[in-house]
Each structure stands twice: as C-alpha cells, then as structure tokens.
C-alpha cells in the first residue's frame, strides 16, 4: 500500500439533508447522513464499505458521484477536488467513476436494446470510441462480462437477473473508468449467480486494473473481494483497516457484533463462537445519541461514551483504526465477557 498517490481520497466528508417542518416547510434542522468520513482508495485496489441500513454508505457513494452535494469536506479524485468542480468539469471527470446499482431492473431502460444501452455512454461522452467501432466494442464488452454478443439486440427483460447485472457492468466498463462504485451490486442475486458476478468483478479488477468502492451490508461478500474494509455506523466511520485486521481482530464492539451476526453455514465447526446479539435498533440518524453513536446498543458503554465522541485512533501500524473508548485489542479480546441475550 505504498502507492504514491491515492486515486480517490475522501477527507472529512459531511453530507446532510435538511429536515423541514412547520407551515412554511422551513428548514428546522438537518440529518447528517455522512458525518466526517475520511478514506483513501489506491489505483487497482478494492475497498469495502460496510454497514447496516441508514449508516450512510450509499450517501457516501452518491456524494462522490455528485448526486448529492457535500456540506463540507473534500473529495479528491486524482488530485482534483470534486466538491469544487463546476458541473462541466465534473461531467468530464464522471466518466472515470462509474456506478453499478443493486437493482439492474431499475437502472436499465426497458425500451432500449443492450447495444443502445452500451453505446449511449459513447454518445454522451464523444471521443472515447469512434462510431465505426461501436459494434466491435459492444461485442468485446459483452464477451468481457460473459454475455453472448449475439444477444446485443435483445431487450433487458429477455435476460435473467444475473445477466442484467452483467449488462450494467458492461455499461459501466464502456467508458473505461478507473473506479467503479458497486452499491450493493450483488445483494439482489441468488447465491449461485452472486458467485458468478463476484468472480467476474474479480477478473475485471485483475485484468483491467480497476479500483472498486464496494458497498455492501454482506460482510462475507466484502471479505471475499476487498483487501481493505471500512465499517460505518450512523454516518460515522467506526473502524477501518486491512481485511485480516478487521476480521481477525476487530477493535470496535460494533464490528465484532456485526461479524458475530453473520449466519455461519457450518456452525458445528466452531461451537464455542461467542455469540453477540445486539439489543435494540439503530437510532434515528436525525437524533443521534450524544458522544459515541453506538453507545445505546453497546455492552461496554460507560459514562465517558455519553460525553465524549471517540475519534478514529490507530490500533496498529498497518492503518487499522477504530473509534472507541474501550477498543478490543488483541490481548484483551480473549478476556471480554459475552453479554447475555
């Protein structure tokens, strides 16, 4: 990870949505969906952004793409601050960052054939592929994502869910991006199809040197694909680090609970797994708890967690950081007591 400059660097990003109320719908307060989040992605690297619904992971993606406006903080892509670019400059840069959504049905126009869906990107961004090469390029892209080029004149409904997600990936690749943001890109797929798409994403990363920001609630999928992982909770980044550090020695209680909650297909292999079942629900992001946002569900919470917000603190030299007043460090993790159900 000694690469000279990151491809994408997000610094202290805040994205907020106004809360309007009263007769004149005046803005009375705001929800900070993303609250001072920072991370870096290096070229060719896959970073996973994990968290439960409402933690702000999708808002991070939307803000990077300019679909939401950042309230403060900066987003550097190849050294340029995306939050300060004009719309025109942003449009030129946008082709380097592409997005694959969860639901291919919602992102593919049902009235367009696959060829049109892919070539549209070149129509909007001229100069990437010459018009006479379109057919050749479409066929190449379709082969690349494992689709039969002969079905280029088919409509999206003639494909299965997994194939439609392949179309979305082909379309994202059409502009030869450097970074692809996958927002729950495999969550809606059946396991056997999900495995195919994960393999495809992995091949593409290796062959094309793509970087991924892979957003998912599914930790096992993220672990498979990403070498670095960041965990978010209620708009805050609470832990970040290498895959091994996050999975072997999670330092934040929430990460630990999240890992423990993944259903294990072979539970009998480690019957002594200390099961952590969190109490309660995620609080509303509009009224986050004071101090540490996780304290209302945390079994280690003390008085200080209520008063003082913990900051991301390095736990080891590899960049493993966590934001907790009582981090579970390697030596103490064996001692920690399991809470009752």
């Amino acid at each position: 990870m000694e690469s000279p400059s990151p491809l994408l660097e997000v610094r202290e990003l805040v994205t907020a949505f106004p809360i309007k109320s009263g007769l004149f719908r005046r803005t009375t307060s705001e929800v900070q969906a993303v609250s001072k989040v920072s991370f870096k992605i290096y070229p060719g690297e896959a970073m996973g952004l994990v968290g439960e619904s409402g933690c702000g992971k999708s808002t991070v993606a939307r803000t990077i793409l300019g679909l939401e406006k950042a309230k403060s903080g900066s987003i550097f892509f190849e050294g340029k601050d995306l939050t300060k670019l004009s719309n025109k400059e942003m449009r030129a840069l946008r082709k380097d960052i592409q997005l694959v959504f969860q639901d291919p049905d919602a992102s593919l126009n049902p009235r367009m054939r696959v060829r049109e869906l892919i070539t549209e990107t070149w129509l909007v961004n001229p100069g990437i592929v010459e018009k006479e090469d379109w057919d050749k390029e479409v066929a190449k892209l379709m082969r690349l994502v494992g689709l039969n080029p002969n079905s280029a004149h088919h409509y999206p409904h003639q494909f299965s869910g997994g194939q439609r997600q392949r179309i979305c990936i082909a379309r994202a690749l059409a502009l030869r991006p450097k970074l692809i943001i996958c927002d729950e890109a495999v969550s809606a797929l059946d396991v056997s199809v999900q495995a195919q798409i994960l393999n495809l994403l992995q091949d593409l990363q290796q062959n094309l040197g793509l970087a991924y920001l892979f957003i998912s609630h599914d930790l096992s999928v993220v672990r498979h694909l990403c070498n670095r992982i960041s965990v978010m909770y209620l708009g805050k980044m609470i832990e970040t680090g290498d895959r091994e550090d996050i999975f072997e020695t999670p330092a934040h209680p929430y990460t630990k609970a999240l890992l423990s909650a993944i259903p294990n297909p072979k539970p009998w292999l480690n019957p002594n797994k200390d099961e952590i079942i969190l109490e309660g629900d995620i609080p509303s992001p509009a009224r986050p708890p004071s101090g540490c946002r996780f304290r209302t569900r945390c079994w280690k919470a003390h008085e200080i967690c209520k008063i003082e917000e913990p900051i991301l603190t390095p736990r080891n030299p590899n960049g493993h950081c966590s934001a907790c007043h009582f981090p579970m460090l390697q030596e103490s993790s064996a001692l920690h007591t399991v809470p009752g159900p």
Partner: protein
Amino acid sequence: MKTTATTTQPDTPAESKPLVELRNLSIEFHSRNKIAKAVNSISLEVYQGETLAILGESGSGKSATALAIMGLLPKPGGVISGGEICFEGKNLVKWTEAERRNLYGDSLSIIFQDPLSALNPVLTVGYQIGEALRKRKNLSKKETKKRVIELMNLVRIPDAETRYKQYPYQFSGGMQQRVMIALALALNPKLLIADEPTTALDVTVQAQIMRLLKDLQTNNHMGLILISHDLGVVAENADRVAVMYAGHIVETGDVQTVFQNPAHPYTIGLMNSIPSDAQTGGRLKSIEGLPPNLAEPPSGCAFHPRCSMATNLCRERQPALEEIAPGHKSACHFAKDVLNHGIS
C-alpha cells in the same frame, strides 16, 4: 407428473405422527399460454417441535410450497395439480376455504418476508394483533388488550403499553417483524411457517429475530418450517433441511449431515458459491449457467444442464429421491459417488 416414484415412508420413529405431511405434492401456475410447474411431486414431513428448513434459490418452489400448505396460492393461476397436504392426518387439499379458515391461527400460521406489506397501515398494531383473539376466542375488549400486551412482551417489543396504540409505520423493520410474529402466535399455532422471515432485515436485527423465533418455538413446542435462501440461517436454526431446485427436492436430511456430507451436486455448488474465510480472495466455484425456465423444464434431471457430472442417463431419466444413508436422501443418479468423492 408421474416421472418420480418418491417413496414416503417416514424415517423418524413411528411413535410420533408428523404434524404436517406433504405427499407427492405438485403445484402449477397457469398463465394465458403456458403452465409453469413450480413444484413437482415433493414429499416431506414436519414433526412437532422440530424445524424443517426449505432451502432454495428464487424460483425453486419453496414459497409456493409454503403458500400451498396455507391455502394461499394466488387465484386464479395457482393450482395444486396433485398430491396431498395432510395436517394431523387430514388432507387439506380437499377442504373448502371456509373449512380451512378454522385451522388458521391455532393450527397453522405464517409470517412473511416483508412485514410492512403484510400489516394494515391504517389500523393500530394492537388492534391487528388482537384481531384473531376477538374473532376466534370471543374475548372482551379488556381481556384482548391484556393478552395482546402479553404477546408484545413475549416478542420483546419494549414499552408495549404505548406501542399498542401505534401504527405499523411507526415501527422499525425489526419491530414490524416482531409484530408479525406476535400476530402469528396469538392463538398458539401448532405449525408456524416462516417464509424468509429475516431477508429484509439487517444482520444484527436478523440475529435478534432468529433467536426470538427459536426461543418461542422451544417454549411452545411448535413445528416450524423455515423457508430461506441463506445457508447460514438454515445451518444455525434448522434441525432438518430439504434442498429444492426447480420444483424438486434434490436432497434432504438433517442439516449437519447434508451440509457436511452433501450428496447432490447442486447442494455442493451452493456450498461452494458462498464466500468463506477458507478461500478469501480466491475464485468461487460457482454453479455455471442459470436455473431452468419452469414452463419448459429440461429433460431428465432438472439440474443436468448446470451439472459438471451430467451423463446421458441424467439427460434421459429423472432421478428419484432415494435414501443413501439413514435419514439422508438425494435425488441424483450418482448420489453415492457425490457423497464419497464430491463433484469433479
């Protein structure tokens, strides 16, 4: 469908009779110009106090099976085209809707994946949970309320007195699912069907709900049919599992046996498809191809187009679900080989 000759002798001790037993059940969905065979002659049984998981991907027929047991197949279109559904020895297939209605609540109950679409948005949660009590038990208003609050406490909805008067939208997804569970359990059913009960929920909430279901099942000694696509959820919560593919049960047995010594190529393919710590970063051994179109199922074994071991036999003859070890059945011509040597 007379292709399979599935035998239906119970493999569990004869002293307990199954709570519900499906015998060669077939379900079809009719649309204007085609018939999709959603379920093909499946047989299974659930005993009191046990959890049977039906595991499968979308279109495998697992939800159709659940709906058929409940008598909730969509009309028109959904038809039970053969076989029997026996609940405590009575064949429900022949019953009229009015006769069946008496079973709902205290004999059979179901919870669905999406609680918000199962709850009525304009009625309070308390009213909806109490509906079954008022209709079936003729309880007074006061008694109903007392019982509803008991139920809400049972499913661990905090502050039940206040929540009683609230509407579904005021509840989080996990809490809504708790409401659904309270509603389903109001009359102490003997059999509860949980159709993907936690798929719409976050993992930490999923863990809460599964723990709750397990506790309630143990306390009430219910039979539970857990329908899921998630191998982890099945492994952690079920006693026995039936793996479905394209409307057929391809493998069944107790969960640990099936997951540790799978005897059907599809089960192995599923196990290989989930990312695990053993092969982090490596390629997943996914199943090639796509599930078949149920309106035009492949000849022979439904899985053969995606199976790496398929031979001419598989293309021609449909394998029967046969016992390969006590209580462990597989519908594969090469079940023994698969069991002993895995798939090539």
